[in-house]
Structure formats: C-alpha cells, structure tokens
C-alpha cells in the first residue's frame, strides 16, 4: 500500500517558460537513467532480496524516487505551461507537442518512450545492488549535464537537490552491498 502526501519533496519554481530545457529535463522522467526507471527497478528488485535490510533500502529509495518523478514532472509542467506554439516549435518540442500537447509523458530527451529494457531484476542480490549503484551514478551524471545546460537559477537549484539525492542513494546502496557480502559469507560458513 502507498499513501499520497500532497506536497513535493523539494519546492519547485521556474523563472520563465523554457520549453528547450523541458525537452532535456524530461529524460529524467522517462529516459534510461530517469526516475521512473529508478523507482520501478528498486521496487521490483526487493522481492528477491534475501535480507530485511536490503528489502527496506529498496522499498524506501524506490518510494523516494516516486517523489523525484513528481519533482521532475513539476519542473517540465511549469517550464512548458506558458510557452506559445511558436516557442515550442523553436525549442524543437513540436514533435512532442504533436503527440502529447503539453501533457507529461515518459520519454527521453530525444522523444523515445520508456521501456522496461532500461532496468534489470536479476534475482542475484550482488548483481542487482551493483546495478543500483551504477544507476545512481548515471543519474548523477545526467543531472550534472542538465545543470550545465540550464541558465535558470531556480531550475538549477532543484536539479542540484536531485543530484545530491543520487549521491546519498549511491552511498546507502554501497553500504547495503557490504552488508550483503557479510550476510552471504556468514551463510556459507554454517
């Protein structure tokens, strides 16, 4: 069961419409290293984890990623809501607009829709936790590229928060991997 709290994990504000930046940021909604993939990856990997500790971390980080999806959607929503069709065309977002108007959809920066092939659930806890650590680093790198592309201090502030969370998640997954190795070697001894 999940409940919904009607507040963002971090407040979102944008200085002005910027459909070009929306086109880039949407990759963190439905792209290969985006928040949908992150959330789905962790929430589905937890079923085959052998320890309560790993199940807890995957449940909690998978849940936080849902909040990040909402933050990314709020950014995109506010960056395009007041853009004119002319601005949308100039930003190269006209293909997206043709299919979705200004609705929020799961695509990468080039418009390719999300696929479950972005994620893996291997059943091997060591393999899965390594994938999770790599996923956090790839998301961190993506947020850094997005920060490089933006000139809006309000947008950059939100992207920095999301980048920082990837660093924390990487840390927690690393600790979970250490605890998993400990658990597995202990289990082999007895």
């Amino acid at each position, binding site marked *: 069961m999940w*409940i919904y709290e009607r*507040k*963002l994990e971090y*407040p979102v504000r944008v200085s002005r419409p910027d459909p070009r930046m929306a086109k880039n940021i949407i990759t963190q909604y439905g792209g290969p290293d985006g928040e949908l993939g992150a959330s789905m990856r962790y929430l589905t990997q937890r079923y085959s984890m052998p320890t309560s*500790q790993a199940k807890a971390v995957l449940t909690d980080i998978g849940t936080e990623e849902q909040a990040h999806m909402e933050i990314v959607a709020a950014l995109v929503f506010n960056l395009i809501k007041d853009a004119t069709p002319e601005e949308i065309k100039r930003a190269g977002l006209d293909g997206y607009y043709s299919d979705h108007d200004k609705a929020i959809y799961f695509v990468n920066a080039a418009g390719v829709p999300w696929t479950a092939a972005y994620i893996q659930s291997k059943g091997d806890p060591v393999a899965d936790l390594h994938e999770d650590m790599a996923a956090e680093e790839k998301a961190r790198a993506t947020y850094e590229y997005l920060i490089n592309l933006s000139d809006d201090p309000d947008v950059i502030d939100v992207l920095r928060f999301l980048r920082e969370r990837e660093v924390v*998640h990487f840390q927690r997954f690393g600790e979970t991997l250490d605890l998993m190795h400990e658990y597995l070697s202990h289990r082999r001894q007895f």
Partner: protein
Amino acid sequence: MDRAQFNSLLNLQALSFTLVDLNLYLDTHPWDQRALAEYNTTALQYQACRQQYERAYGPLVNYGYSLSQAPWRWAVDPWPWEICWGEG
C-alpha cells in the same frame, strides 16, 4: 496560496525531508542511537506541525491519514505541481 500557508508548507517539507534522509541512514545504521533519537524527535515534531497545517488548510494525506472538515477538503486546488511562490 498565501505567504503564511506557503511558509508552513515549506516548514513541513523541511521536517519531512529530514525524516526521509534519516530513514535511509537508519536502514544501514540501525544501531546509531543518536540518529534514531533524532528520527523519533523529528517525527513527533512533524506530526504536530502537520496537524496544525491541516486544521488551517485541509488534509495533506489521503486514505484516512488526515481528517477533513466539511465539505470534503481533499479535492481542491492547488496541487503540489501548481503551487506558485510569491503569490499573495
């Protein structure tokens, strides 16, 4: 949303983010008593602030985790992605 509501929402966001981060930390450091004490203290503070916010502005959580005055105060604007800063 007026300035007073926005500021109390911001305060709730800060408290609840503290809890998210401490929760993840405790998942890998279950024996850290200082972190656990901070988690429990902040959780009580969060519950009190949330109740105070909800009495003034309506429920923050669905499915029975918050009470509502009449009429039903959940299905009202603004939703989190529609909140504009600096209004009012």
